[in-house]
């Protein structure tokens, strides 16, 4: 099948371009110094940026997404749940650049004014928008998995004198732990793979930073920036290294999700 061919091609491309890069300058790539003028091409700062952005936004978005999907389950709120579901769907349909534009004009000035040490283009801004970006995806996924489970067991558990909240906390959530995990993982992979938000909001400074108020660059934004450089130059080559790392991370996530699903299926 053509699909298969294309995927193989994609892997072959990235690998074949990345391999020589790693071979010849692996150590150099693994430094945290990105100073093309000084012939330093380390991309670990970008890796760190990607991880910080993805991990923090997933950690922050997940509990909220979980709360929202519980909200949609609780019968007491069923009248309000419909609009919330509509909003979720709407939110899932808002293009990434539109979120980024909103943030550029609302959030960045706000952060700039609140923290004098920051130019507003920083990890914090990117993280906040990333949270809004990945939440709807997670909520939709959680809803599709939790709602049927709740419907199936609600009558039973209610008949046993459990309140709806008890049903959710004691039965539905524990039983759906795999669904929760796959929602979190999905959010993470979306966060680590997104380009436009960090490119437009995180400032893109190639520095290894621990502060959320600092400007930082992610692997994806790095690809977007250095693809413009001369082909064959070390800057240009570093993009395949970045691509390779991203590919590895998406591969890992895919494998984890598949594992989860398989054990899930085995459980059923």
């Amino acid at each position, binding site marked *: *099948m*053509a*699909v*298969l061919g*294309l995927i193989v*091609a*994609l892997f072959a*491309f*990235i690998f074949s371009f990345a391999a020589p890069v790693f071979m010849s300058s692996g150590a150099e790539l693994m430094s945290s110094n990105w100073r093309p003028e000084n012939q330093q091409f380390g991309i670990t700062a970008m890796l760190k940026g990607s991880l910080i952005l993805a991990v923090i936004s997933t950690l922050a978005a997940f509990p*909220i*997404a979980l*709360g*929202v999907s*519980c*909200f*949609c389950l*609780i019968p*007491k*709120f069923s009248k309000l749940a419909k609009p*919330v579901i509509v*909003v979720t*769907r*709407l*939110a*899932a*349909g*808002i*293009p*990434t*650049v*539109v979120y*980024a*534009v*909103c943030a*550029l*004009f*609302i959030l960045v000035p706000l952060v700039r004014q609140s923290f004098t040490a920051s130019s507003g283009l920083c990890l914090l801004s990117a993280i906040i928008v990333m949270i*809004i970006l990945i939440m709807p995806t997670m*909520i939709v996924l959680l809803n599709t998995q939790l709602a049927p489970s709740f419907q199936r067991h609600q009558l039973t558990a209610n008949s046993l004198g459990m*309140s709806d*909240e*008890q049903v*959710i*906390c004691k039965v539905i959530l524990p039983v759906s732990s795999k669904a929760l995990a796959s929602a979190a993982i999905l959010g993470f*992979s979306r966060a*680590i*793979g997104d*380009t*436009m938000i960090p490119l*437009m909001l995180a400032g893109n400074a190639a520095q290894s930073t621990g502060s959320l108020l600092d400007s930082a660059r992610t692997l*994806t934004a790095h690809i*977007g920036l250095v*693809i413009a450089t001369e082909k064959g130059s070390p800057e240009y080559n570093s993009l395949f290294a970045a691509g390779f790392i*991203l*590919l590895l991370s*998406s*591969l890992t996530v*895919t494998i984890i*999700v*598949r594992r989860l699903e398989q054990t899930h299926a085995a459980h059923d």
Partner: protein
Amino acid sequence: MTKQEPKPSYSPRRSCRTHWLQVYALACACFFTSLVGLCLAYIIYRGSPTLSTSLFFGDTAPLAAILGRQPIWDGIWPACAGTLSLVATSLALAIPPGVAAGIYLAEFPKSWLSRCVGPAIDILAGIPSILMGLFGFTLIITLRSLTLPTANTSLLLSGLCIAMLILPYLASTTRTALLAIPSQLRLTANSLGFNQWQAIYRIYLPRCKTAIISGIMLATGRAAEDTAVIMLTGAVANAGMPAGLLERYEALPFTIYYYSSQYQSQQELNMVFGAALTLLIFTTTIFTIAGKIISNQHDTF
């Protein structure tokens, strides 16, 4: 009958009036909806005053512009047209193999091909879009140096890369829908002497029609909004109306990205919000239709 032993007297648990979960869930829901509401309101607030013929057509006469007699400058119409052609191209490229792969995966899960295609599609689904763009770009460079010196970044290339991006959606919605068919219905179809293709074509697919269509809708939204891919594969700041599959083009999300970071005038800033609102209307329409289809589906099954 022996004498009844006294019932153990348990101490009943106080049922607190409002469970903490209610409060938490309510807070989350408020937080989430207000954030999204804020974004939407802002775009509508800034975008709606800009909606006018000059937003779309710049200083060109609208009719001449639509008929293609006059090039359009400083208007987002070419970007709208570009996005539409891009969506059409990528859907045309993605739907047949996507749906076919979904059917194949659901119906022949044991074949060696499924064993390869299944994971491949999963992996494809996880690939960040910028990588797909990078792939498209290197593909063109490689093609040029190997066999096709005229190959260039173009609408077709972007369409192809986006098709690869949305193909897993289509495949997995189709597959999920087919797998969700109750095994009872499968048994029934088989017991009535349908062969496998007849069963798929006459029974399963009609039943999954709505699910598949809504998958296509979601994929359309994805195709319309992606920026990272087209940035690397053929979208440019100024191209006029899309002239063909092998030409460069303008696209709404790229226009938004481009001008939002470097607007030089009020007019260019207006283009940002006008384009954002237009794109928003486009994708939400699509998502709403998909949502309608999904909820109807719940009603009928």
